């Protein structure tokens, strides 16, 4: 399905949800569940919280189905809710939030001998260290810059759509992104 067809399909499905078709809601959920939760995970760096916020996103979509109008892209609306919830959580829960541990690692191969295990532990430590640096660097970005970077990098959104999500101009988004990436380049240069 082309991107444009997918977008039209999203709006069409949501209109059906507005008309009472819960199966269409399930289809939308299936399509957008992972991207939304993954975005939230990278924003708040806690999987449990990301899933809780992700549910809140879809709950709000469902509850506002009666007044849905396909004026903006469905994903813009979806990520606008997600970003709003994430920014609120970061603002409110800063003192108590806990970051999770490192994520998916390189496939290490079978662990047989002690020497292999030592090498695997070392490799994992190196990978962990790299990932830790990436996560810390992203966590250190101001919340809006972080949201813009995550949408740009992982959701592959265009500047115009990110602007729609953040409620600002395209030039403001470019400014956010360029500053964010400049910070990341400076901080992660040694990983090259």
């Amino acid at each position: 399905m082309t991107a444009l067809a997918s977008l039209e399909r999203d709006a069409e499905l949501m209109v059906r949800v507005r008309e009472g078709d819960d199966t269409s809601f399930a289809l939308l959920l299936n399509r957008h569940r992972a991207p939304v939760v993954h975005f939230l995970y990278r924003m708040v760096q806690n999987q449990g919280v990301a899933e809780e916020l992700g549910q809140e996103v879809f709950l709000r979509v469902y509850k506002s189905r009666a007044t849905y109008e396909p004026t903006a892209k469905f994903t813009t609306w979806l990520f606008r809710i997600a970003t709003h919830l994430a920014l609120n959580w970061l603002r409110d829960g800063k003192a108590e939030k806990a970051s999770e541990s490192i994520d998916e690692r390189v496939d290490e191969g079978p662990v047989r001998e002690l020497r292999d295990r030592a090498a695997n532990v070392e490799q994992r430590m190196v990978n962990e260290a790299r990932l830790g640096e990436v996560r810390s660097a992203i966590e250190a970005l101001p919340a809006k810059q972080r949201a813009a970077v995550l949408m740009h990098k992982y959701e592959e959104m265009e500047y115009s759509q990110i602007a729609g999500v953040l409620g600002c101009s395209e030039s403001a988004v470019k400014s956010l992104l360029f500053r964010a990436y400049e910070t990341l380049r400076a901080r992660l240069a040694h990983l090259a």
Partner: protein
Amino acid sequence: MRCPMESGKGAEIVLALAAGRLEGAERQAFEQHMAECAACRRMAEAQTSVWSAMDEWAAPAVADSFDARLMARVATPEPRRWWQLGWDFGWRPALPVGAACLALLGVFLLHNPWPQVVPPVKPVAQVQQTVDVDQVESTLDDLDMLNQLDAPASPPHDSSAGS
């Protein structure tokens, strides 16, 4: 090609290149320019490095129970606010009658405390059913390490047995 840094377009072009979104003639022109411009080349290399590093950060899979938990929340009716109850009976803007009712209710409440109603809150165990497998793996590795260091000494090695 004029240096994009001078025209203020440098960052945008480098981002597009690192993201794989710079194509065709524009890409070719910039690649030719980078062969001569150290500043652009350095920036592009640094941005590509950041992009690759960010590629390594995979998000965990969403829990299987996500949809079920969401549907449970969808199905739970919202608690009605106290001021919404009045709409069922129509609104009578009669201040003296309303004040008298409130006063009577106030007296009643003073002698009969409101029963504690705890709203149905999901138990934490149900809310967070995901087990972070990576965390668990790391914990098991650490436990294994500590266990090995704490283990009693193994029987003497027989060098004739071979490894």
